[in-house]
């Protein structure tokens, strides 16, 4: 009796709630993800508001103030050329955010296209594309990035391209994998059994369902991208203008003064760690809240 009443009762409150809103609700209940959000918030605000917050010009300093430890005037101290470290960290966030976002979007476009072609067409196209991807994956990411920057010369766009190229094969594999799994799934066969066309299958049934792992991977890739950019900077392959405030380059510059000015290592390092951890935590949280197996 009770089963009948339950089945017959309308559930408008639940019916109005969408898939993404469910996911968002779960995400907001995930504590590590919220910490990630908080870190990313700091990072993004720092990048966007750098010109407003920064107390000094990040490129100009007075040599008399060089290598000062943190004080009331310079809360993160000063670097070798007397520039305010705090202002440089803020402006460094801009570089990291810009390069990170552009390179991940670029990588998504490249990898997504390759993955969609391989998984969508299959057959020989799939075999050839995936072998190319395998070759790229076999090369360590940072090595590949160094190679590309060395080949195309230093520059912000080259760095973006290099980081994108290290991420693209991962996106390609991921998308192809989900497409292949989805092609054999019941609802895709069901859609085919009611006569859905191939483009409709790809764009309505396959891609939307393959999107969630890509979103998660893209968030995690932002973390790696920030580290990669800093890594390239640290290896001396950062932005061509040596004055540019870039976290990795700032680390390299300060290694020679480790004994006199530990703050020059500490603050850029902290900035890299906070932004990378932020994206990692958010990525993990997204994975959990978007996982279809957890959907209720």
């Amino acid at each position, binding site marked *: 009796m009770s089963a009948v009443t339950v089945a017959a009762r309308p559930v408008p409150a639940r019916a109005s709630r969408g898939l993404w809103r469910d996911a968002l609700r779960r995400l907001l209940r995930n504590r590590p993800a919220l910490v990630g959000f908080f870190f990313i918030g700091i990072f993004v605000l720092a990048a966007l508001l750098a010109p407003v917050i920064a107390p000094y010009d990040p490129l100009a300093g007075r040599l008399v103030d060089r290598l000062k430890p943190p004080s009331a005037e310079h809360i993160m101290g000063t670097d070798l050329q007397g520039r305010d470290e705090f202002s440089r960290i803020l402006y460094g966030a801009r570089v990291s955010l810009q390069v990170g976002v552009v390179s991940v979007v670029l990588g998504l476009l490249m990898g997504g296209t390759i993955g969609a072609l391989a998984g969508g067409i299959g057959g020989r196209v799939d075999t050839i594309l995936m072998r190319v991807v395998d070759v790229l994956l076999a090369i360590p990411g940072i090595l590949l990035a160094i190679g590309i920057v060395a080949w195309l010369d230093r520059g912000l766009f080259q760095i973006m391209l290099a980081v994108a190229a290290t991420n693209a094969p991962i996106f390609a594999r991921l998308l192809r994998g989900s497409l292949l799994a989805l092609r054999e799934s019941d*609802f895709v066969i*069901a859609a085919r059994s009611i006569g859905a066309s191939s483009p409709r299958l790809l764009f*309505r049934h396959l891609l939307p369902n393959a999107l969630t792992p890509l979103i998660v991977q893209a968030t995690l890739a932002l973390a790696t991208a920030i580290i990669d950019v800093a890594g390239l900077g640290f290896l001396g392959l950062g932005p061509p203008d040596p004055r540019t405030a870039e976290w990795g380059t700032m680390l390299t510059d300060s290694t020679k003064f480790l004994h006199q000015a530990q703050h020059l290592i500490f603050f850029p390092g902290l900035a890299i760690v906070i932004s990378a951890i932020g994206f990692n935590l958010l990525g993990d949280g997204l994975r959990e809240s978007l996982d279809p197996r957890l959907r209720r």
Partner: protein
Amino acid sequence: MALLDVDDLVVRFRTHEGTIHAVNGVSFELEEGETLGLVGESGCGKSVTNLAVMRLLPKPAGKVEGGRVIFDGQDLLALPEREMREVRGRDIAMIFQDPMTSLNPVLTIEEQMVETIRAHRQVSVADARQRAVELLSMVGIPHPADRLKSYPHQFSGGMRQRVMIAMALALEPKLLIADEPTTALDVTIQAQVLELLRDLTERAGTAVIVITHDLGVVAGITQRLNVMYAGHIVEAGTTDALFERPSHPYTVGLLHSIPRLDAPPGEKLIPIEGVPPDQRRAPTGCPFAPRCAWRLEVCWTEMPPLEPVDGSAEVVLSGPRASHRVACHNRPTADEARAGRPLRPGFVPAPPPGDVVDELVAAEGAVEEELVVFDDSGAPATALPGAHGLPQSPEEGEQR
């Protein structure tokens, strides 16, 4: 002329482990508005037969390697993919086993239903939505207009299967293929869904093929049954005739392995011993012979033809007067069918003849060899005579 005429259909899968002989020459007919049950255990080829009819076999492994499928006067196997797409949904629709996975999780019910309708009919979105509401209320979903906005995960399993039925019937197809439509549902919901399916298809005059391993499911809703084993139809006839007088040892076994409320107290269920044959081997003889209590020597070497039980020369393939046909060299008598075992004094199932054993061992060897290539453990498999497919005793059969 029959609505669907499947003639000598052969489907094989080419895999790394060899060729799977999934469907080995299946023929059947279906009239308009008729309900046919395809019964058999997992892997007997019943789903593959229908995926082949729909041309939805998994590519590139699955291939139709012989036979014809004539639907409504058209040879489906010869149709270009574009025209076949028109047939799917409009003329033939399918319902799948698991309603939890056969709806797209990221689209609302409305999007999926409207899409289905508009894929085949030139109607406006508003009209398609109106039709979707009608369909949902037809399958008994309360507050259909509200529920249209829901996502699949907001429905229970039974409700989802109702949505699937609504979508399948949206375009009033001539043929509905229901592949295990109630297997994933609660027992309490099963009867409801089956009744709904019968009512709707009867009213619309839709022909239905119900695929199931559960004789209880088909008993009430089908007019005719085809019993399949290892890619062959081993017995065919009206549902009444098959239940009243099962004539193939496998059908007898199936009927004796399900509990019945009207059975005398204390009567034991008789399991079918052994496992289905390894379909990587080309079929020789009757596929059921290794598990059969009635087998003769000829069963090992010769596949019996599907022939009318009453021995008449005239064969009716479909409709209410369809002939009761069986493929068996040594049919159980009525008493034996009732008892579930041979009652002839001194009868012993024939052991496999020497050359069949040799052949089986040789085939095993070939299969093992192929397997070793793909075996991770690296341990060489020892092929013993009858190690596969030939239970030497009931106990051994059970262990595997």
